[in-house]
């Protein structure tokens, strides 16, 4: 716990999994923070000043200093507040966690997202790629409770979209991607993840998220 007065503010958007990663990290570390919900169609001066390069959420502002990009923020939180580490101590395992975190971000999220929002023409290909991505994660989770081992770590935080958003979006889209029949181990992980005592407090309510995305379908 920091001895001096800490000012932690976080600019986010509640339906965004990227924003949620930061919320997860803050809650897992037990950090007190002020939250500001951003309207991305009318960006606040604070957002534009603290993330002038990308003008996106999430942004963490710690003692007046801004940090952007969700996974950069999560590692910053991990290095600044050292209790409940998100990364293991061994350099090889840390490199491995960063590799999987990046893979989730770059290879899993895009096709999963596309599978839900693509039109009929592009959907088949997107679903195929999404299933391949889920298969890779199924192989990686194996018999571990979490990607981080016994507790939630960097990769689990990075994969929050897979652990929670996918179930809601597939119901809306009428798709069966992540199911216990197709990916039993990954499905089990998603249940462990979304019912974890701290994680579940940080995730947006299911019905609210469902309604939000449902209203965006045609």
């Amino acid at each position, binding site marked *: 716990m920091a001895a001096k007065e800490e000012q932690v503010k976080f600019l986010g958007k509640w339906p965004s999994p990227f924003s949620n990663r930061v919320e997860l990290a803050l809650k897992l570390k037990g950090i007190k923070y002020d939250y500001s919900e951003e309207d991305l169609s009318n960006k606040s001066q604070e957002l534009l000043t603290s993330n002038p390069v990308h003008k996106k959420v999430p942004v963490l502002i710690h003692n007046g200093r801004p940090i952007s990009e969700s996974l950069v923020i999560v*590692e910053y939180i991990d290095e600044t507040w050292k209790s409940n580490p998100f990364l293991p101590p061994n350099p090889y395992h840390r490199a491995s966690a960063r*590799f999987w975190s990046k893979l989730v971000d770059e290879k899993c999220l895009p096709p999963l997202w596309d599978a839900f929002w693509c039109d009929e023409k592009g959907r088949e290909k997107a679903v195929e790629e999404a299933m391949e991505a889920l298969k*890779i994660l199924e192989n990686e989770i194996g018999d571990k409770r979490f990607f981080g081992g016994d507790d939630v770590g960097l990769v689990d935080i990075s994969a929050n979209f897979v652990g929670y958003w996918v179930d809601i979006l597939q119901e809306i889209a009428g798709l069966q991607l992540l199911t216990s029949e197709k990916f039993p181990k990954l499905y089990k992980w998603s249940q462990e993840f979304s019912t974890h005592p701290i994680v579940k407090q940080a995730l947006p309510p299911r019905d609210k998220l469902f309604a939000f995305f449902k209203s965006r379908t045609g």
Partner: protein
Amino acid sequence: MAEQEVVLLDEWLSMFGSRARIALAEKGIKYEYREEDLSNKSPLLLQMNPIHKKIPVLIRKGEPICESLIIVEYIDEVWKETAPLLPSDPYLRAQARFWADFVNKKVGDVGGRIWAGKKEEHEEAKKEIIENLKQLEETLGDKTFFGGETFGFVDIALVPFSPWFYTYEALCNFKVETHCPKLISWAHRCIQRQSVSKSLAAEKEIYDFVIDFRKKSQLD
């Protein structure tokens, strides 16, 4: 530290491979360099990076580490007594990671649309890369290196792209120096370091490769 068996699977022209080479050289690590033929990947590469099948891959004690910036962080954590590549302050580390990520997306990906992209895409890609390099120029400012006085993570992330400027310039008809003179001076300062000069591919060699690739792929 006792000499560990360290192998780097790489391809000389790769800017991502260069990052790993620079980091290893900065730390003075002895390693075995293995050149991969990417049209005929070795069984070792396919075994060590089965998901992406890409270089660079660093292999230490038989264990593979993939993705160039992850390799650089790994090298920094294992050989932590010499030449730190990332600052110790978490806020400055976050800034370094942010800008290295910016280089990947805004120079790497956009640069790819130039050298490996169709001619029709060049005008748009050129505008973007100039804007992004100008952003980096602004970030560098009058500092010696991106982190200040010490050569480090962001410099390692970006400098391997500098010999590629010649190719981008030739394909899109512009000069980086016109828009980003400080970046060009910074690149020259970096090349004064042996770790960098011995790790970068030559701009002419890159250009010849790209022209040949574009001809074979019928991109022009």
